[in-house]
């Protein structure tokens, strides 16, 4: 790794740690938020947003040139609450009000939140809606804008994803990038025990997508992958399969196949954040 790259990754590491903490704090304020599903996304979102791969103008929500980011696995989106506040979509103190009456930050994000494009969390919709946006952008001759759809692996059991995947492959939608947060767990078990998804990259390839497989917690690897995907012309839709760990950084979650619905106690949170009074 050259020096400038290592400095950049150092900054990203600091940012990722901050987001990890913010995510846990959000969960502490609103225990109904899904923490484990959000923690598997921390490095993916860090590398995506803080390397400048997502074009946006927080002060101009409907700016035509913005990249459309759809977080189809809405349960895992609370990390994005902190990112959007950090980028200036809304004041940072909104994060204090998560889950409270009058806040726009709920357990699952909706487009009442500045920066969110679609209704999320009802699983299996994002990829198809994103493909529709991609067709619209193409029709408007907007070739510089990407539609980035983040899906979970459990969500891929929804058949509508594969209707969209066929569609994108057939129409060579090179403005669509699908990032799979492959954390290997759904609600009741590991996904390979429910309905196995492997070989997942080969499945997307068979549907006409160019695929990448990357360690979803390695900021350098993610940055390299995004650099190749976002900085060079694409021939068709791209799927990035990011291998992740659900509940990353929280040992009791990482080891728990039922961690999706696990809520951390205030004591556990204080211990994780090093804020215990010994």
């Amino acid at each position, binding site marked *: 790794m050259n020096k400038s790259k290592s400095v950049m990754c150092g900054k990203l590491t600091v940012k990722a740690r901050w987001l990890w903490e913010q995510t846990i704090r959000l969960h502490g304020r609103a225990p109904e938020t899904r923490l484990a599903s959000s923690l598997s996304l921390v490095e993916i979102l860090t590398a995506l947003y803080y390397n400048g791969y997502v074009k946006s103008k927080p002060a101009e929500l409907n700016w035509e040139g913005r990249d459309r980011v759809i977080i189809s696995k809405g349960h895992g989106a609370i990390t994005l609450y902190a990112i959007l506040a950090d980028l200036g979509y809304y004041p940072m103190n909104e994060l204090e009000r998560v889950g409270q009456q009058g806040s726009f930050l709920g357990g699952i994000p909706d*487009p009442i939140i500045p920066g969110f494009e679609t*209704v999320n969390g009802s699983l299996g919709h994002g990829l198809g*809606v994103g493909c*529709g946006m*991609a067709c619209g952008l193409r029709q*408007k001759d907007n070739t510089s804008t990407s539609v980035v759809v983040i899906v979970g692996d459990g969500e891929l059991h929804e058949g509508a994803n594969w*209707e969209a995947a066929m569609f994108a492959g057939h129409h060579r939608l090179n403005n669509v990038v699908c990032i799979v947060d492959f954390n290997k767990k759904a609600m009741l078990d590991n996904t390979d025990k429910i309905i196995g998804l492997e070989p997942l990259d080969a499945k997307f390839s068979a549907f006409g997508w160019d695929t990448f497989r990357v360690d979803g917690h390695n900021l350098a690897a993610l940055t390299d992958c995004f650099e190749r995907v976002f900085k060079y012309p694409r021939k068709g839709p791209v799927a990035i399969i990011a291998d992740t760990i659900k509940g990353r950084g929280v040992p009791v979650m990482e080891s728990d196949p039922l961690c999706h619905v696990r809520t951390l106690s205030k004591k556990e949170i204080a211990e994780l954040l090093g804020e215990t009074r010994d």
Partner: protein
Amino acid sequence: MTDRPAKRMRDMFLQGVLEEMNAATDIFFVTADFGSPVLDNIREQHPDRFLNVGIAEQNLINISTGLALEGFRVFAYAIAPFITMRCLEQTRTNLCVLASVKPLSVCLVGVGAGMSYDVSGPTHQALEDISIMRSLPNMAVFSPADAECSHDLAKHVSRRKGASYVRLDGKALPPIYQANERLDWNKGFNVLRKGTSASLVSTGYMTHKAMETADILTKKNKRISVVDVYSLNHLNAVAFADCIKDAGPVITLEEGFTGRGGLDCLIMNAIKGRTITALGLLPEYRFDIGNRDDLLKLHGLDANTIAEKVLQTAVH
């Protein structure tokens, strides 16, 4: 009636859509591999704004949503039971929920209202679609009675903001309205005949049965009102109640399940306090084979049987 030929609603509706697409560049037409001769004109003349998603209604709605979010007006086209039920949650979430916060213009066009796909059986018949679509906030429901007004309906929905469902009959039907008649879609109903003995309130194909019934009863010296209700979620209830107040007992006629939130429910709410007789189908799935009028007769929805039932309630 008239010697003008029977026409299919979808042909006239799609002709209206084609004219709108010729005049504006922001309209997309998306189909779930369902066609018609006029649709061939749309896809030949506007290949860049025509998409066939294949037999995939969930994706039909999702793709249409994405196009609408990019500022396009969208027509999504499929067989009525499938576009209303196969993808209902996509419609609810991506059209109705989203339309609360984002400007969207998407019209779902379903062909095969009621039992128009007679011999195809229960999978292809749409007997629940009115109830289901009526239950959705941010969803307009239009049910035209003939091809003539369907042309105007296409123009209306193409200019309308929000989500809408248009249920079109699958059969060629004789005209009820004048050629290219323009209806008040916001008012939602039209009085076809005025009378005081009883009022038949109907939608879609049953408006034809209502007219037939009124003809039979006229010969028996009854004066029957016929009200065609074509906007099933945005009926002007005050105007409707006013038009029907001196028109005798009210009988609703629908080619769908009664007591399930369809036309009968709409009218009951519009004229609260008055008793109505709801004629339609019992909520059950049947596998009777026959043409549409054979099937309707099995359900007591042929004009003669309807006329007998009306006589039981009619006054003077």
